[in-house]
Structure formats: structure tokens, C-alpha cells
């Protein structure tokens, strides 16, 4: 186990910067998820930690060693690849034991380690098969087994679940979390799926265009997004954003609808803002959580419904913007029906219209 530090880490391909001087401290045993849209530099960052990608500037420190110039094999880490990268010419047993064999450990020790890992991941009946004869989920488990056999300081996961179907993905997510609780190693996990990030992470690192936008626990980034990018990226469905101007303590939308400012905020008169409301915080009257002290009400026509069972997702328009709202204890709603919605203002966010940054200090 070891801590990992990134200090002003830069990656450039020629003149093109891909990662711009990022700083990150990962504690021993912590599960950190790098998340962001494709091309945000998260995989590149992970590959720099792994040693598969040269570091153009700054330092990567694992434990107490600067590893910038160490080859991957001297960094004592394990990596699970998106396409699993199992060795197709070896059996599962050989795949699992490969790293120990390369390290010239005695055969008895290799066998013991392989059997232990196979037991943890229920791979024992598959040990003599080749990867070609395994299903996607089984290959995924072998790839994880190959990682845990070595007892590495740090586990690296590069979008390990994106090749699995939705159901299997949920299962493997749980297995990964259990595995982390069991072995307790430091984990750096890359994904573009915000649900994976929320469910797995001790801390989430949200990246965009080679910069770190926000670092925090899943609840922190969900409840206090620093800007509209994080607000719409984290959480499903994404946060609704309404453009408006502050007039007399209210957010006035383009069509004249006025919604009071969220409490505790004091924004200058005339400032252009975006009001952020999650679907959980805008609900039709009579189908909502008990009202809080700070409520506002708007009327909107429903244009589409998505019944999900325990709740129905309503699509409606407000001042020309499409909104998503949740309806608890749902009843059938027909398109075009006008409904009155309550907004829980204390859960809403205000962002600067130009920079997109949160106005909650």
C-alpha cells in the first residue's frame, strides 16, 4: 500500500497539451475515481502513473519515491485494462501467475497465490481454460485476479466495466468495491460513467480538458458543484439550468417568470445568472416530498413522461428551457397537461451566467 501524489503533472504531445499541471494527493488505501468526458485527460493521467506514458513535466510520487523515470515494472502496481488484455496463449492459471513467474518466485508460492485469488473471485473451476473460452464477465474477473495476485501498492483501473452489459456492470461494481474493502489497497479508477464514480469512490476527481475541475467525496460534488459543468455531469438526470437576471432578490427568467433566489445567497442586482435545480427538487404538487420552508411554485406544460415505477420522470418546458422533474407516487399524466410544480429553493444553486462558476461562496 502506498500513497500517490501528482505534483504539477503535465502531458504534452508535441505542442499539444493534454494534461495541464494537475495536482492531486491520494491517501494510502483511498479509492479515488477520475471521471470526465472522453478526451479530458483522465486515462492519460492514469497511464502516466502506470509508467506507460512519459511524463512531460511535474512529478509522480508513489510511496516516497519519485517514479517519473522508473519503468512500469519497478512501480509495483497492477492495472486492469478496458479490454482486459489477458494473454490469449496462456490458461487462466498462467495468466494469474504470470507476474510472479516473471519475478521468479518459487512454484509453490505461485500456486498458493493463484489459488487464493481464484478463490476470492470464484475462478477456481476456470483455471485451466484459455481466455478465449471465457465470457466477458469471467474475463473481467481474471483481469482483476491478475491484479490482486501480486499484492501491489496501487491498483489502477482503466474503464474496466465499459465492455460489460448493464446488469453485469452493476454486479462487477459491487465486486470491485468488496475487493477494495478486502485488500485495502490504494485504487485509482478511471471512468466516464458518473454513476460508477459516485458508487465506488471515496473521493471523486472531476476532470475536463486536462484540468481538475473539482475534487471531493461523492456527496460533496453532488451537493456543492463548483460550476455548471460538474452540476450537469454528476447526478442523473442532469441538473436543470435556467437562464435569468437578478431583479429585487428574484431570478427573473426570459419569459418574465420570477423565482426567488435560493436562501443564503446575496447576488448583486442585474447580474446574469443560471439557476440550477435538480429533478429531485422540482416536483408536481401533491406528488412531492413534504414542502420545506423555502418553496417556490411555477406552472409548466408537461411534454413527455418516463414512468420508472416508483417515480415518473416528467419533461416540461419553463421559459423555453426543457426541464426534468420527478413525480413521486405517480399517476398517469398526458402530454400537454399543465401542472403546478414546487421548487425546494434551499436545494437550488446559482451560477454565474458567463463563467458558469457557483455563486455559493
Amino acid at each position, binding site marked *: 500500500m502506498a500513497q500517490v501524489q501528482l505534483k504539477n503533472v503535465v502531458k504534452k504531445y508535441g505542442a499539444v497539451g493534454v494534461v495541464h499541471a494537475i495536482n492531486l494527493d491520494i491517501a494510502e488505501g483511498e479509492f479515488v475515481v477520475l471521471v470526465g468526458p472522453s478526451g479530458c485527460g483522465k486515462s492519460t493521467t492514469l497511464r502516466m502513473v*502506470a*509508467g*506507460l506514458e512519459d511524463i512531460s513535466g511535474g512529478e509522480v510520487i508513489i510511496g516516497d519515491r519519485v517514479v517519473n523515470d522508473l*519503468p*512500469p*515494472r519497478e512501480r509495483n*502496481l*497492477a*492495472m486492469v*485494462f478496458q*479490454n*482486459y*488484455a*489477458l*494473454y*490469449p*496463449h496462456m490458461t487462466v492459471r498462467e495468466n494469474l501467475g*504470470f*507476474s510472479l513467474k*516473471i*519475478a521468479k518466485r518459487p512454484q509453490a508460492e505461485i500456486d498458493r497465490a493463484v489459488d487464493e485469488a481464484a478463490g476470492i473471485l470464484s475462478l477456481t473451476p476456470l483455471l485451466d481454460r*484459455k*481466455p*478465449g*473460452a*471465457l465470457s*466477458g464477465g469471467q*474475463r473481467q474477473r481474471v483481469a482483476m485476479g*491478475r491484479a490482486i495476485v*501480486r499484492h501491489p501498492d496501487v491498483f489502477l483501473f482503466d474503464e474496466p466495466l465499459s*465492455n460489460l452489459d448493464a446488469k453485469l456492470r452493476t454486479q462487477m461494481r459491487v465486486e470491485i468495491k468488496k475487493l477494495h474493502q478486502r485488500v485495502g489497497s490504494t485504487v485509482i479508477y478511471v471512468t466516464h460513467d458518473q454513476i460508477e464514480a459516485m458508487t465506488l469512490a471515496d473521493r471523486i476527481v472531476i476532470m475536463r480538458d486536462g484540468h481538475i475541475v473539482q475534487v471531493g467525496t461523492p456527496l460533496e460534488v453532488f451537493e456543492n458543484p463548483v460550476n455548471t459543468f460538474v452540476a450537469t455531469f454528476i447526478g442523473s438526470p442532469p441538473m436543470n439550468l435556467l437562464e435569468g437576471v437578478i431583479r429585487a432578490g428574484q431570478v427573473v427568467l426570459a419569459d418574465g417568470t420570477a423565482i426567488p433566489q435560493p436562501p443564503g445567497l446575496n447576488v448583486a442586482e442585474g447580474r446574469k445568472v443560471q439557476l440550477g435545480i435538480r429533478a429531485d427538487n422540482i416536483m408536481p404538487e401533491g406528488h412531492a416530498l413534504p414542502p420545506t420552508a423555502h418553496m417556490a411554485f411555477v406552472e409548466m406544460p408537461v411534454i413527455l413522461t418516463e414512468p420508472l415505477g416508483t417515480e415518473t420522470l416528467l419533461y416540461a418546458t419553463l421559459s423555453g428551457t426543457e426541464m426534468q422533474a420527478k413525480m413521486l407516487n405517480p399517476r398517469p399524466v398526458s402530454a400537454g397537461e399543465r401542472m403546478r410544480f414546487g421548487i425546494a429553493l434551499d436545494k437550488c444553486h446559482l451560477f454565474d451566467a458567463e463563467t458558469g462558476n457557483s455563486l455559493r461562496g
Partner: protein
Amino acid sequence: MATASQHRIRKRALKVAHFAGLFLAMSIICLPGLWVVLNSFRPTVEIMAKPPVWIPESLSLDHYRAMFGGAGEGGVPVLTYFRNSLIISVTSTVIALLVGMAGGYAFARYRFKGKGVMFVALMASRAVPGVALSLPLFIIFGRTGIIDTHFGLILVYVAMNVPFTIWLIDGFFRQVPKELAEAAEIDGCTRWQAFWRVEFPVARSGIASAGIFAFLTSWNEYALASQLTRSATSKTMPVGLLDFTSQFTLNWGGMCALAVLMIIPALVLTFLVQKHLIAGLTFGGVKG
């Protein structure tokens, strides 16, 4: 029901037609080869008979006996030619494979200046007909004194084969995902170990087919070998066939017998490696 049985009949008829077609094609393709084998076992009179004798009346090993016999009885130094062929083909194949692996790997994995141009140039070098090179080669080899040596022919065959082995092996390494080598490196391999323990075994069948290709090219090559060899010190089997021609006669039976001896090793080799050729690559290790 009627349609089902009709369907079955049509399916069977199609299968029969398929086989008949294949049989016809194969007999046309194989006929010259069979003719060679057949002729090596029958007397010259029968070979030369007009109209041709299709069903042989007598078979014998006379041509083989004569070929291995003394010089006066129409014998040729078969074993020496065989040895020459073997030394030249095997050595040039091994070298072409080593260079092909290094080059193919570099083309498949690395980015470097002039990569595209180099690749096209390598391929273009194959567009020059070998015979067109025979005169310049003859002059250069004559001047440098490597005419009629194993070394000279090996050099020529390596040059002929390298572009192709690079091209083939490049294709096979391209199919090996680079994550495999990366996983191996993280598992503790050096770059070199990652290649030999993971990438090479996965691409092995491709490399084997490139090897067969190179071997057969050098084993069967005649045009350049006939120019660049003089004596039993370096003559290969295809060139040895010419020993059966004399000023006024052609010993067809002997020639066929030597040709059969030439075909056998090539056939054996192909059978030995065909498992690799057919099995192809098993890419269970990665999904995508």
C-alpha cells in the same frame, strides 16, 4: 412438409454440385503435379509416347536409381544440391524472419519519420522483376567474388524476402493489441521480455506463415539461382534440374524424379505448419 423435403433435396443437390465443381477445379490444378510424379516412375518411351499413355503400363524406380547412380549412368549430385538448397533456404529464411520481425514490429508499434515512405519503398522494391536484376547482380557478384557461393544466394534471397516478411509480420503485430505488452510490462516484464513472452507467442502463427512463404520462395527460386551458381558448390535443386538436359536429349524421367524430391520437403513443411496457418490467432484475451 412438401416444401421442407424440397428444401432438403435442393440443399443436397447444391452440395453435390459443389463437390463436383471443386473436384474439377482441383484436378485441373493438380494435374501437372500428378503428371510429374507419374512420369518419374515410368520409362522414357512411355513418357514420350504419342498419343499419350494415360494409364501407366509399368512403374519402376529406374529414374531414381539412375539419378543416385554414378556420373556415367546419368547420375547427378542430388545430395549435394539438396544440401545447398537446404543451407541457402533455411539460412535466408531465418534471417528474413528476424529482420521481418524487427521491421514489422517497428512498423506496427512505433511512429517515426518517413515511416509511410519507407513502407511504400519496401513494397515497391518487390515490383521490380527479379530477372531484371540478374545481370547487374551477376556483374556485382562476379566483381566481388561471391558468385557461386552460398553467401551470394543467401544475400539475394534475404533481399527478396525481407519486404514481404516485414509486410506480413507488420500485419500480424497490428492485430496484437498493444495493451497486451503494456499489461506484461506492468506485470514485471522488461520491454524485451514483454515481446518474447507475450507478443511473439500471440503472433507466432503469423510469423510461421511468413516463414513458410520465405522458405518456399528461396527453395523454388530458379531464375536468379541459375545465373549466380556455377558448380556443385552452390547449385540448388531447381538449377540441378538442368543437369538432365544435354545437347541433343532431354531426360524427362530423371528431371521428374528430381522434381519429386524437391516437392517433398516443401510439402512436409507445409503440413507441419499448417496447423498454425489454419488455427490463426486466438484473440480471446481482449474484447473489442
